[in-house]
């Protein structure tokens, strides 16, 4: 067994979860801290990308700072028998960034089972997009709402709890 394989994925994730250092050779810098070679760290990261544990290596933007001031979580009460077919149509719309079927919480006054996140430069733009979704859902939709975000309260990457 080589020395590097003794370093767990968990240790590698812990070293990367706050983000990469913004330096010319970021993996070399992280590798030194982990006590492994840059090549071995990169091979381990490549394996995590292959397995799906790492989706991508990229920047997380703050859309408020980019002028995308209107961010509406549209929620829809869609016939259960049609939610798969209609959800696929809504998810394919270019202005929908996330689209999920989720359980209802009727006893809490929450009848909605389809969530579609819509971003725009203005609330009017978001409303127009919401109307487009409503038109596609038609009679299969029994009610809908939109929840605008007022503030980002927290936004971090994955944080593993300390162990031991």
């Amino acid at each position, binding site marked *: 067994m080589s020395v590097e394989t003794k370093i767990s994925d968990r240790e590698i994730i812990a070293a990367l979860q706050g983000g990469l250092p913004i330096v010319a050779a970021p993996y070399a810098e992280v590798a030194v801290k982990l006590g492994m070679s840059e090549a071995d760290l990169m091979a381990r990261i490549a394996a995590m990308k292959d397995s799906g544990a*790492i989706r991508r290596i990229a*920047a997380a933007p703050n859309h408020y*700072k980019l002028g995308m001031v209107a961010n509406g979580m549209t929620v829809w009460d869609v016939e259960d028998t049609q939610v798969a077919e209609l959800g696929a149509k809504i998810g394919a719309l270019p202005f929908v960034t996330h689209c*999920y079927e989720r359980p209802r919480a009727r006893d809490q006054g*929450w009848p909605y089972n389809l969530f579609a996140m819509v*971003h725009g430069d203005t609330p009017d733009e978001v409303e127009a997009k919401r109307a487009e979704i409503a038109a596609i859902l038609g009679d299969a939709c029994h009610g809908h709402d939109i929840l605008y975000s007022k503030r980002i309260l*927290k936004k971090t990457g994955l*944080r593993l709890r300390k162990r031991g």
Partner: protein
Amino acid sequence: MLDDTDRLLINRLQDDLPLSSHPFAEVGKELGLSEADVISRIEAMKDSGAITRFGPFFDVAAMGGAFCLCAIAVPAGQFEHVMTEVNEFPEVAHNYERDHTLNMWFVLATETPEGIAETAERIEEKTGLQVLCFPKLQEFFIGFRVKA
């Protein structure tokens, strides 16, 4: 303020970067920028908050963990206090205030599927408020991109 080059860069950086020992040099080559310019622009955008984080996006589900969207109806007057309590949980990855009776919406990321219910329970104990969990049943799109 972001200039056009910053916007070009931020659009490129939201897509997967090549796994290279000098990733910023590679991105610079694609965009016609020097490595030093790419690095200083990313630093500046992190400082200004235009970029909240740069690095690997982990999928806890692929590692045996779980994500879950949760919401709390926080009574008026308690919001700032409850926000502080909720944000202190390391499992809370994102948290947004929204204009609805259910006015606090956050994503839990835990290392095991059981961790979601366990964490939601601890948040209920801490805040004294009910946590509603909305796990995804089906996903219809993945690939969040904001055009800068």
